[in-house]
C-alpha cells in the first residue's frame, strides 16, 4: 500500500469510489448478496512490516455483506457517502465528518446512527479505495496540536498565498496551531534551529515548559499532543522526523493510556494501520514518565484501577508492545500497582522538571545540553 502516500487526482478518487459500488452491483447481478471486503481492524490483525518499520494490517479480511440488517445498512451508507464525496469533488467543497453526519439525516435508511459510525465509515472507505480522507474532502473535527520552538513553516492561507511562520517569534503563548491538512499542498517545512522535537501529552506540562523557557534552553520544539494525537499531529511529526532528521521524543504520563499514545505515534494506531507508514514515526523515543521514574524520583502516585490493569493486560498481548523494553515497563507497573502524572514532578518545585528531571532523562539518551 505504498501508493497511499502518493496523492491521487480527482478522477482517480472518483474511480476508486466507483469500485465500491461496482463490487456490490456485480454481486447482485450474479444473484448473491452485495458485499464490501475490509481488513479486520483489531489488534489481532496487525503485524510488523519489516520493510516499512511500522505496524500494518495483516491478511485477515472481513466481508461486510447484506445478510444482516446492520451490515446492509452499512453498505447503503457507503454508497450514500460515495455519492456525497463525488458531489463535493465536483463542486470543489469540503465538509467536516460532523457535517456529513448531519447531512446523512436526509439519506433515509442510509443515515448514520452516531457520529462514530460516520468516522469509522470514512476510514473504511480510505482502506478500500487506498485514498486519503483528504482526497475525499472530509475534514476531521479534531483539534490539531500546538507547536512552540525555533522552527519555520510555510502555510497556504485561505487566499491561496503562502505565509511564513516561525513557531517561536511569530506566535503567541499558545503556539502555532497545526491545521488538519499538513500535506505539501498546504504546508512546507522551511527551516529549523533545534536539536530535537519533544511531544508532550498534557497541556499543563506543555505550558510549564513554555513558561520555563525550556524550548530555548534545551534547543528544542515543543508539541502539545492534546491526549491521543490527531492524524495531522502524527503526520507533521512524521514529516519533521523525515525531512529534518531530528529525534522525536515523547513525554507523557505514566499510565497504560499514555503507552498507547506513544504506540500510535511510533508504531502506528490500530484504527489507522492502513496508513501507518504515512503517520507513524518509527524513530520516536519514549522519554518518560516511566515506571522506573516513579520509583527513582519517588513520585506521588495513584493506585492502578481495574480498568488500568485490564488495559495493561491487553497491551501485553498487543504485538506493538511485544518488546523487552515495553514488557519490562508494563510488568513493573503492574508490580508496583501505581501510575503517575507528568505534573507529579511538581512535588519538588515548579522548576524541577526543567532543571533536573528532563536534563537527566535527556542525558540518558545522549541528548545532554
Amino acid at each position: 500500500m505504498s501508493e497511499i502516500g502518493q496523492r491521487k487526482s480527482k478522477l482517480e478518487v472518483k474511480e476508486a469510489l466507483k469500485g465500491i459500488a461496482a463490487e456490490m452491483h456485480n454481486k447482485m447481478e450474479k444473484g448473491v448478496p452485495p458485499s464490501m471486503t475490509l481488513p479486520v481492524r483489531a489488534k489481532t490483525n496487525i503485524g510488523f512490516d519489516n520493510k516499512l518499520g511500522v505496524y500494518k494490517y495483516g491478511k485477515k479480511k472481513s466481508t461486510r455483506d447484506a445478510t444482516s440488517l446492520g451490515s446492509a445498512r452499512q453498505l447503503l451508507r457507503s454508497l450514500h457517502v460515495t455519492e456525497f464525496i463525488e458531489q463535493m469533488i465536483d463542486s470543489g467543497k469540503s465538509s467536516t465528518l460532523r457535517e456529513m453526519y448531519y447531512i446523512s439525516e436526509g439519506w433515509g435508511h442510509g443515515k448514520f446512527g452516531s457520529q462514530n459510525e460516520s468516522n469509522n465509515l470514512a476510514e473504511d472507505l480510505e482502506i478500500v479505495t487506498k485514498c486519503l480522507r483528504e482526497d475525499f474532502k472530509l475534514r476531521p473535527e479534531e483539534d490539531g496540536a500546538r507547536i512552540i520552538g525555533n522552527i519555520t513553516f510555510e502555510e497556504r492561507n485561505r487566499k491561496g498565498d503562502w505565509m511564513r511562520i516561525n513557531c517561536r517569534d511569530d506566535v503567541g503563548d499558545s503556539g502555532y496551531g497545526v491545521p488538519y491538512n499538513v500535506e505539501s499542498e498546504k504546508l512546507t517545512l522551511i527551516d529549523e534551529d533545534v536539536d530535537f522535537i519533544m511531544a508532550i501529552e498534557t497541556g499543563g506540562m506543555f505550558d510549564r515548559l513554555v513558561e520555563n523557557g525550556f524550548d530555548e534552553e534545551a534547543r528544542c520544539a515543543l508539541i502539545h499532543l492534546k491526549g491521543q494525537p490527531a492524524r495531522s499531529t502524527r503526520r507533521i511529526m512524521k514529516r519533521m522526523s523525515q525531512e529534518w532528521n531530528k529525534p522525536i521524543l515523547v513525554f507523557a504520563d505514566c499510565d497504560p493510556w499514555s503507552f498507547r499514545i506513544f504506540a500510535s505515534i511510533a508504531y502506528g494506531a490500530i484504527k489507522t494501520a492502513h496508513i501507518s507508514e504515512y503517520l507513524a514515526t518509527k524513530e520516536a523515543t519514549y522519554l518518560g514518565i516511566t515506571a522506573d521514574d516513579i520509583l527513582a524520583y519517588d513520585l506521588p502516585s495513584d493506585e492502578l484501577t481495574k480498568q488500568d490493569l485490564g488495559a495493561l493486560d491487553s497491551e501485553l498481548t498487543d504485538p506493538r508492545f511485544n518488546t523487552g523494553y515495553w514488557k519490562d515497563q508494563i510488568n513493573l507497573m503492574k508490580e508496583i500497582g501505581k501510575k503517575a502524572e507528568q505534573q507529579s514532578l511538581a512535588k519538588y518545585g515548579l522548576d524541577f522538571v526543567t532543571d533536573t528531571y528532563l536534563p537527566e532523562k535527556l542525558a540518558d539518551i545522549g541528548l545532554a545540553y
Partner: protein
Amino acid sequence: MGGPSGGIKMVDARDISSKQKQIAVSEFFEKNKHFLGFDSLQRSLITAVKEAVDNSLDACEEARILPEIKVEINRLKGDDIELISQDNGPGIPRDAIENVFGKFLLGSRFHAIRQTRGQQGIGITGVVMYSQLTTGAKTRVVSKIKNDSSAVFVELGLDTRKNKAIKSKERRDVWLDENTGKEVIHGLKIATIMKAKYQRGKQSVFQYLRMTSIVNPHATISLIVRDRDGEIIEDAKWIRTSERLPRVVEEIKPHPHGIQLGTLQRMLRESEEKRMTSFLRHNFSGVSMRAAKELLSSSEIEEIRNPKRINSEDAKKLIEAFQKVKLLPPPTDCLSPIDDLLIKKGLSKAIDSRFASTVTRLPTVSQGNPFQVEVGLVFGGDLSADGPIEVLRFANRVPLMYQQGGCALTKAIESINWKQYGLDHPGGKGLPKGAAAVLIHLASTNVQFTSEAKEAVSDNEEVSNEIRKGLLEVGRGLKNHLKKNTQRKKAREKFELVNVILPEIAKKTSKILGREEPDLAPVITQIMNAVFCEEELGWDKERKLATCSIQIFNYTARARAYTILLKWPESDMVSIVENSNGGRKEARGIWAWRLDTLNPGSSTTIHISLSGLSKGDWTDTDVFFRGNGDIIGATKIDEKILEEIRKTEALSAVRKEIHEVNNIDTDVGEEKVIHVVTENGTNQEKIDIFSKFEEDEV
C-alpha cells in the same frame, strides 16, 4: 366466618366458648385488635373496606347477582373518616340486620366446610365496633330486599356487654340512589365514621380494591376518596370483564384427615346419631360404610356404640385410625377457583401488559383439606422493569396485603430459578426482577395462616409444590413468549433488509455506475434462505370474533410443502366459524391445514375466526408444522406427543361416559371425585403436554 348478609347461616351462639362470653366484647376487641386488623389508623380503614366489600361479594354470589360495589371515603376533621359502602346485593331482611351487624362471632369451627371469603377476618361487626369505640358514631344501614316495597333505614350501635346490637331511628322509606336518583330495587349501604387514615401505596384501600377486582372479574368496583374540602383526590373504577358469576360451591363435611381431637369430641357430643357407624358416615366426607367399619375395628370401638358415650381415650384412638385406614379423598367441588381465563381477564383490567399466562391447577387434598392453586403471570406493558416483580397474593379470592416476605406463596415464587424463564434473578435468591407481576390464588376449605392476622399463608409442602408447578407452567409460557419475540424481531429485520434496504442499495449502485438495476429475487432467496411463519391474533369488534392469521413465506430456492397446525382454545363454548383453508381437526385444541406447494419467493395466508371468546381471551398461541425443512416462527410437531393427546382424549371420553351413567346415583363420594378428575383432567393433561413441547426445544 360465614358471609353475614342475605340471611345466610350464622354460627350458632353455642360456638362462643363460655369463657370468652364472660369478657366484655369491647375488651376482647381492644386486646386482639392487632389480629382483627384494627391496629393502626391506616390498616383499620383497609380492614373496614375489606369486611364490607367481602360481605357484598359473598352476598351477591349467593344471590347470583353481578356485583356493583361503590366505596366512598371522605376525610372529616382530625383523623375522622367517613366510610360509605354500597352494593346491589340481595339486601338483608329487617329482622336479620341486628344479628348481622351486632354479633361478635368468635371461634371459627364449622360443621359444614366450604370456601368462603368471610372465613378470614372478623366480620362487619368489627367495623361497627371500631367506629363506636373510636368516634362514638353509630353505623347507618340502608337495606332493601327485592320483595319489600320499601327499604329499611336504621342506625346501629353495640351493647358490648350483651354482645348484641342496639337499633335506633329505624324507619322504612323509598331508597333513591344518590347518584342516579332512581329507586334502588335491592342492595345494602352502610355508612360509618371512624378514626382512620387514608394513604396510597402498596398497602392501601386502592391496592386492596385493585387486587379484589383482579380476582373478581365479574364485579364492578369503584372508589372515590374526598379530601376535607370535598375535593376528589382518588377516583378509580374497575369495570367487570366477565358476566360469569363464580359457581355456587357445595358444602362438604370435614374429612377425617384434617380433624383434631377437640373438634371430634364436640362433634361426638353434639351428634344426633345413635350408632358410631352412621356417625362416621354422615358427619365426614370420604367415609364409606366399609371404611367406617374398618375405622371402628382399628380403634376397637363397637359399631353400635352411641357417639355421645365415646370417651376421650376412644376418641384419641379414632383419630389415630383416621390416619391409618385408607379413605377416599374429600370431594373438591366445594372449591371455587376463579378459572384461568377469568384471571387473565381480571389481570388485564387492572394491569396493562404485553403478555399474560394463567393456569388453574387440579384440585388436590392436603391433610383432609381440599385445595386448589391458580397462578398468573403478566409481563411487559406498563409494568415497571426496575426492582422486584409485583406479587399479588390471594387466599379464597381475598387479597393478602401484609407480611409478603413470610408467606408460603411468596416463598414458592422465590424457589423458582427465574433466570431460566427469562426474568432477571440476581443470585437466584429472593424475588426475581423485571417488568412482571405474579398472581397466586390459593382456594381451600381451610387456609392455614402463619398467625391470627391471616395475612401470610404458612408453609405446606403440598401447597408449595402445586404453586411451583403452576409457576413453572406460566414461566414456560413467558419463556416461549420472549423467544417468539426475538424470533419475530429477527424475522422483521430480515424483511426490512430485503424489502427496503436491498432495493435501495441496488438503486444507488445503478445510479452511481449508470448501469441497469439487477434482478433481486435470487439475492433475496439467498439472504433469507428460510421459510418464515408469522401469526397474528386479533379481534373482530363488529362481529365479536377472535381472529388468527398465519402467514407463511417461502424464501428458499426450493418449493416447499407443509402441514401447518395451530393450537386453539377449543371448548364446548368456542368454535371455528370461519376458516379460509378448510383443513381438519388433528386433536382436541389442534387444527391442521395441508398447504399447497409453496414455490420459492411465494407466500400464503391462513385465516380463521373463533366465536365464543371475548376480547383479550386469545392472546397467545403456538403454530406447529409437519414437513421437511425448518420454519422460523413455528415448531416441528412431535408425532408421539400428538398421539398421546389423542389417547388421553379417547380415555377421557370413555371416563365421561362412565361418569354420565354413574351420575344417576347421586350419592356423594367416589363418583364425584372421578367427575372432577375427568372434567378438569383432560384440560390439565393437555396443558402439560404442550409444556413438554416447549421443553423439547431447549
